């Protein structure tokens, strides 16, 4: 292989190896903090557990509530989705922001209805 071809090969490998950086650069977020997300949090009040715990482990609580309810018929009011809704009023400004950001699809909404801000607005207007 001559030097010219070798350079092209190195370039191809460089593009592959640096693809995370390259993709980011192409998307125009280089050097900016546009990657951080901001959540719409309730103005006041405490959640059922502290913030750090909830951030990492809320799925356990929801899952526990689901299992208890479906299998044992015991409803844990604190841990119900409905209870969440009392403070976190809509899905797109709370749940979805993080979930979309890290690419995790919650199973909750396959059965449960958790209104989006748009739906909530429409409902308010309808009343």
């Amino acid at each position: 292989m001559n030097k010219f071809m070798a350079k092209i090969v190195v370039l191809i490998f460089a593009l592959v190896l640096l693809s995370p950086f390259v993709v980011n650069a192409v998307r125009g977020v280089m050097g900016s903090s546009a990657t951080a997300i901001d959540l719409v949090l309730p103005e006041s009040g405490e959640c059922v557990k502290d913030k750090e715990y909830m951030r990492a482990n809320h799925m356990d609580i929801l899952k526990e509530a689901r299992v208890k309810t479906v299998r044992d018929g015991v409803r844990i009011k604190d841990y119900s989705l409905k209870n969440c809704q009392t403070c976190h009023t809509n899905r797109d400004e709370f749940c979805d922001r993080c979930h979309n950001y890290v690419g995790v699809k919650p199973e909750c909404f396959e059965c449960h209805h958790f209104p989006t801000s748009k739906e909530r607005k429409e409902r308010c207007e309808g009343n």
Partner: protein
Amino acid sequence: MLSTCYTFSAYFAIVIFVLGILCKVWKYAITPNPLKISLTPAPTNAAGVILRVILDASLFNSLFKSNKFIWLGGCALHLALLIVVASHIRFFVSPVPELIMLLQTFLQSIGIFIGAIFLAPIGYLFIRRVWVDRIRFVSIFADYFILILLFCIGLSGITMKYFIRPDLVAVKTFIMGLISFSPEPMPTNPIFITHFTLILILLAYFPFSKLIHSVGIFFSPTRNQIDNSREKRHVNPWDR
């Protein structure tokens, strides 16, 4: 302090990883082939050779023909690596593309198996290495080391997924900060710190280890040369 330390280490490891590999690629690319040494029966045209290399690199065709047990272990390990890497893409792009979301949904549905299919072949290959006397004889410390390293990476990953969870938003923010050159704080979950440290070790060790086979396979002259010595004169670059 932790964040600064890890941000520097991360860039350091990435630079070694990328430059190390590129140096190897450069060396492999420019070192001449004085003679035609294709292993026959070999393809007689370029398309055939490309197919041959792709089959070897993707399905481990040659290994399949020579040893089914190692092929099975190798395939399982590499497939698991592929899945694991694919399921990490979501931490490196924002917003997450639709395709990656679809993949993620699928991987979520098979959940626990991902961990198992990653750790099982490592265990299998380790046991095989110790068990078969002639393979044990030719094994060196580095061969065990790399299996142990991968095993620990897998184990810490599984631990994070099911037991001691980090704040994923913080994790992604940290990683996005790294790849967009605007450092963000390092998450403090100890398992994440372990996982991340091991990966940095893997990255920095990669170009100096046997893992370079992943690059080398594309340069192997017995596989990537066209069998056309009689039809086209091969010229030795250092003996024209």
